[in-house]
């Protein structure tokens, strides 16, 4: 065994290595949701309205907006009635088309004052109504 084999590990390379590992781990933790969104996506139990929720960019945002819309509604909202109405308007097409028709006809709803096209607002309301009764998984 040589003398060199018995020498302790140099302190500077050890600290540098450790910091490198921490940095890589940190960046990975921050970037992972962006790089692998499916792994980090919030999961929801199945609902009767999943075909409509699939049209939304972000269901959590939608539920937040929907809660504001629901809170401003004077009467109880029947989710199935709302869903049927939206499905009729969307008719299997991209949501953007139904929204275009809403805007052309001036159909707008307010979520805490934010003006939203009817179809988007109604799906948001459904998201909020489902959120109230769902269990987060």
């Amino acid at each position, binding site marked *: 065994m040589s003398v060199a084999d018995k020498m302790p590990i140099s302190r500077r390379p050890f600290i540098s290595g450790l910091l490198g590992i921490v940095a890589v781990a940190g960046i990975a933790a921050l970037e992972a949701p962006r790089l692998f969104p499916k792994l980090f996506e919030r999961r929801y139990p199945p609902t009767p309205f999943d075909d409509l929720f699939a049209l939304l960019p972000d269901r959590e*945002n939608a539920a937040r907006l929907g809660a504001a819309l629901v809170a401003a509604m004077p009467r109880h909202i029947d989710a199935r009635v709302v869903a049927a109405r939206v499905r009729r308007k969307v008719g299997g097409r991209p949501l953007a088309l139904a929204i275009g028709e809403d805007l052309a006809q001036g159909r*707008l709803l307010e979520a805490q004052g*934010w*003006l939203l*096209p009817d179809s*988007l607002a109604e799906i948001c309301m459904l998201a909020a109504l489902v959120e109230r009764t769902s269990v987060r998984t």
Partner: protein
Amino acid sequence: MRSFLDARSLPKGATLETDVAIVGGGPAGISLALALAGAPFRVLLIESGGLQFDAATQRLYAGTESGVSYIPLENTRLRYLGGCSNHWGGWCRPLDPVDFEKRDWLPWSGWPFARSTIEPYFARAQSLVEAGSIVYDDSKTWTKAWGAPLRLASGGVYTTYFQFSKQRDGTLPTHFGERYADDLRRIANLTVCLFANVTGLRLTHDARSLARLDVATLEGNRFAVKPKVSVVATGGIETPRLLLASNDVMRTGVGNAHGLVGRFFADHPIPGQTATLVLFDGRLAPYYQNIQTANGINFRAALAPSDSWRRNHALPGALATVEREVQLDGVGQAALAETAGVLGVDASSMRAFTLGCGMELAPDPDRRLSLAADRDALGMPRLRLDMRISDDDFARYRKTLRELGRQLLSARTGMIRLLHNSRAEWMSVMDWGNHHMGTARMHEDPRQGVVDADMKVHGVNNLYIAGSAVFPTYGASNPTLNLLALVLRLADHLRTGFR
């Protein structure tokens, strides 16, 4: 007579004779005097104040206010040569053609003539306020220099442009007293009488003519002016005070046979922060947020409902200005993300701004100035203002904002949040434009107006009223440029009458 007289130095009990007396040295009175320069008759301009602010003179304006919170009557105007131009912001824009129309949904609406009647006078009015050549909505001048306006889908709201009275040293618009004092001095047929308060319009016994004006100074001097023709140009608040207080022959006051004087008081509500505007790409031409200059003209953009939209949707005038940049709260961020997402728009560079407001009130006879029991230092009854604003006024403005929101979304340009719904929310941010209008309204029918289309007081053959007091409806544009166009038209009428 010398061109500038100090009323305090006149002999007590004197009588000044003149052909035309102009009561009030604000923008209307000064412009009328300038427009009558060189006419073959003598003109006397009577101003309560001097060349500078004086607290004792200003206190003559004090009154009481009730109802909706309003600016104290002593603070909402200025009583010295130049009048309200001494504190104006310089915003200029002609009223829209629809503002002159009778609208079935808007009781008491309808000027006795179309905008085309005063259109020929706008160029000279524009020159008086030193706002540059007339460009306004001929927007190429602005957009060529500063970039394109907001992209809005077709609909009711469009980008309109204000021009601004000359900015002196970058801060002040044209102050008529300071700016035109030397011009007034040079007019051979004009005398300006300062420190002279007209306290009474004295009619002949048959009430068909004005016989004389009673004038007083704060120092106790009292004298009379005997004109052939008089023009009251004392603003939308002081004009009804003078008419109502002159009740020795007509017990209800001069021009008030039908109880209209002092009613229909109006101002432009300018509540701050009425909406949040989000622009998906964050791009906004600088002329929306601040005054810019192009071809030497100061201008700024606003958003307004078009005439056709207003006709079709029964809406009054309205304006929205882009104010300061703001951050979105949680719900705002959710609204942005979700909306931009479904529209397929990249909102990573978004910016948000507050929207300011200019609103036209519907004419309301119960929004009213009347005489109070207490008196000022000259013995004139003070005024009491009953200020009102209806929920409909707010609701109508909201409709215009909703249309703007629809057009922004349709064009995939942005979106808006309406900040106020309840009356309490609107009132919490309420402010006023200091634009006093409507209290001596113009109408051909004496039962509906104090003055006729020539601004002559109904039933009195030699008394006229100049200024925004005669506006029957108000539009959303600032009144100064428009009242000056009316004044210049009146000058032509007076010149013709003396031929």
